[in-house]
């Protein structure tokens, strides 16, 4: 039995079931990250003293990493548009860039963690670092999940394109929604944890 409305959009929702499911998933993710941002607001406003975030974290490195993630989002949108226009080769090239930039982002994050832990900054050091490692760690886990899905989409793209091009376009569109959400969450995190 085929899943209904996986290729053509439902008349009432105007989207495919995959896209609808992705938006529902994003809503649950917003609540997950929202609860952590709420904890941050609670702990920061309730703390007698709060560390100078910009001084203990590596802001230039995180800024560069933000640009890396923004570039990967741009490549994701480009890849999705190329596929919608029927250009499979351009899609694969764009997705290659997305995967590369995603791995670079995780690598830079790993370097940042190593440097912080090397300076004795651990999750148990204070409330800010506890929240910092929880939020950024959860975000990194989401990036890993996105990379796995994107790699699978890219690896199977030739076969899926041959058997059902619209199905591949819909899958990539749903993956792009997720990847852009991850990017938006990072921007909120970057401002909250590094700049405020």
């Amino acid at each position: 039995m085929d899943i209904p409305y996986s290729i053509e959009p439902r008349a009432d929702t105007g989207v495919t079931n995959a896209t609808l499911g992705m938006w529902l998933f994003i809503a649950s993710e917003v609540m997950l990250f929202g609860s952590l941002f709420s904890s941050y607001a609670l702990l920061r406003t309730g703390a007698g003293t709060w560390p100078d975030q910009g001084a203990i974290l590596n802001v230039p490195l995180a800024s560069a990493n933000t640009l890396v993630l923004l570039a990967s989002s741009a490549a994701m949108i480009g890849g999705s548009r190329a596929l919608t226009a029927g250009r499979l080769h351009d899609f694969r090239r764009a997705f290659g860039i997305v995967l590369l930039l995603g791995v670079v982002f995780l690598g830079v994050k790993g370097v940042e963690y190593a440097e912080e832990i090397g300076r004795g900054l651990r999750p148990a050091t204070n409330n800010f670092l506890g929240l910092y490692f929880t939020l950024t760690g959860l975000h990194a886990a989401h990036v890993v999940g996105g990379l796995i899905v994107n790699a699978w989409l890219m690896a199977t793209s030739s076969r899926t394109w041959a058997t059902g091009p619209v199905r591949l376009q819909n899958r990539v569109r749903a993956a792009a929604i997720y990847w852009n959400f991850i990017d938006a969450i990072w921007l909120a995190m970057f401002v909250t944890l590094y700049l405020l």
Partner: protein
Amino acid sequence: MTMSGRARFVALTRALPCAVCFSPTDPLVRDSVNVGIFVLLGVTVIVLTGFAAFIIRIAQRSRMHESS
């Protein structure tokens, strides 16, 4: 149940206020809890507004689909 056992049961089940939310001595903690609640309420309102807009959109499209 003996008298002392009943007294202990009553003592154990007595409702005590949460020391964080109802503490009159520490306004900083109370204010910070309020900020946390409002941030989470803001996130919840945004998500629920999205759901409401989507449900309204479905109803409108469904009516359009039926009329056509």
